[in-house]
């Protein structure tokens, strides 16, 4: 069985890709087989965190969506050294003409759902993580509809509050079995327990982690996954906690 997990935020730049990559590394560290799909077709980027050079991105999600090859051919293994499990990544194309074509022509969203689920079966994934585009476009709605668990990332900031409310409401209508909030980029001076309590109460939704705004995390973002570099850091424990809440008892190594 594969647990499908979407990581989403209404606004951009909240830390979806970072969160996705770290949770993927936590799962793999526990020996799981993990897939990551960069569903942020319009502004892809998670491949950078897995150390994939964009020059080598000749096979990607876009190519599959245009029927050039099966999704299996766009997968690359990005398992970091020394990790018990495995991680496979489906990147999106960073080529401007590919992105322009998606914007101009769109693609068959249904194909995306079928492809992703077929891939999960073929690679015998325990978890499939979907890193999404901000906002609620069709592929994001599809990814939420397919998901067993949804992590909504927000910053403790007025800019993010209303959009998060919209996303929580939409997730309820799609009956996602498990929705959690991740408060990211929290000023170090804020009291995490207070932040968690307030946010959980405002959205009537559990807060799985309150991640501080961390200099180290920011520095690493250009090619590194925090939990792999700092496994004993308190922030790494937060991603572990998030991973626990996303899967609950559904998947065990």
């Amino acid at each position, binding site marked *: 069985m594969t647990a499908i997990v979407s990581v989403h935020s209404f606004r951009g730049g909240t830390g979806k890709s970072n969160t996705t990559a770290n949770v993927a590394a936590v799962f793999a560290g526990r020996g799981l087989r993990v897939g990551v799909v960069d569903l942020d077709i319009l502004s892809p980027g998670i491949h950078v965190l897995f150390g994939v050079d964009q020059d080598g991105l000749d096979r990607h999600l876009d190519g599959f969506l245009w029927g050039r090859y099966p999704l299996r051919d766009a997968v690359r293994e990005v398992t970091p050294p020394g990790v018990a499990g495995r991680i496979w990544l489906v990147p999106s194309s960073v080529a401007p003409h590919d992105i322009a074509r998606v914007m101009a022509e769109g693609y068959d969203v249904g194909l995306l759902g079928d492809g992703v689920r077929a891939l999960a*079966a073929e690679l015998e994934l325990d978890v*499939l993580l979907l890193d999404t585009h901000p906002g609620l476009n069709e592929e994001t709605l599809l990814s939420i509809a397919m998901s067993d668990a949804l992590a909504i990332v927000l910053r403790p900031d007025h800019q993010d*509050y*209303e959009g998060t409310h*919209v996303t929580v409401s939409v997730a309820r209508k799609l009956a996602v079995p498990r929705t959690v909030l991740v408060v990211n980029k929290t000023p170090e001076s804020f009291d995490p327990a*207070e932040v968690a309590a307030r946010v959980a109460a405002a959205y009537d939704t559990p807060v799985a982690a309150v991640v501080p705004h961390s200099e180290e995390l920011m520095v690493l973002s250009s090619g590194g996954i925090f939990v792999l570099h700092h496994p004993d850091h308190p922030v790494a424990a937060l991603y572990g906690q998030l991973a626990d809440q996303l899967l609950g008892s559904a998947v065990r190594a």
Partner: protein
Amino acid sequence: MSDRLHGHVLVVDDDPVNRLLLRRALEREGLTVEVAVDGGEALVALARGAGFDIVLLDIVMPVLDGFEVLARMRADPATAALPVVVISGSDSSADVVRAIGLGADDVLPKPFDPALLRARLTSGLARKRLADLEREYREQVGYVVDAAAAVERGEFEPGSLDAVAERPDALGVLARVFARMTREVAVREQRLRAQVGALRIEIDEARAARTVAAITETDYFADLQRRAAELRSGPGRQDQENR
């Protein structure tokens, strides 16, 4: 010549020759001198707050005599502690007793003996300096006490203890620790205010509902809603169908 003295002296004498002799003697010692020709002028000079360290006071003068000047000085808090050396032409012990009774620190006979005058000045100035330090200490203790009250009222001005904090003694340590603690408290309070502001999660429910409606009231969404359960039990997990 022995150590020079430092200080600002008020010489009060109606006799010009005496004034001149005293001025010369004092300036030779390194002191700066101001003169008054009678008691009235002396009180005016003192009221100006010219920062005198000691007063040399004649007794027999027109307008106001030395006794009267002395009495008024001691009655005024601004000059009550200012050292006064009476230089008296009279050698009646009754006058000496009266001067001391009115608060003179010392009485010297006229004509004055320079060595004796110097000795009196030295001890008078030392007393003045000590009194100044004590007054300053009391004042600065007062600042710290005021600062504590200001903290209680929430009106503490961060720089208000800077002068006290420069003291090398225990009071300086107290002021520095106090200032640091209030700074830390202020920073904590400011952060708390920022947190409370950032966490005031007020959502325009009507607008959010309109956005949700725009997203969900579409055929695409209705179809997703219908198919969501089936989508979640896709080929990747057929072994888990009855979960």
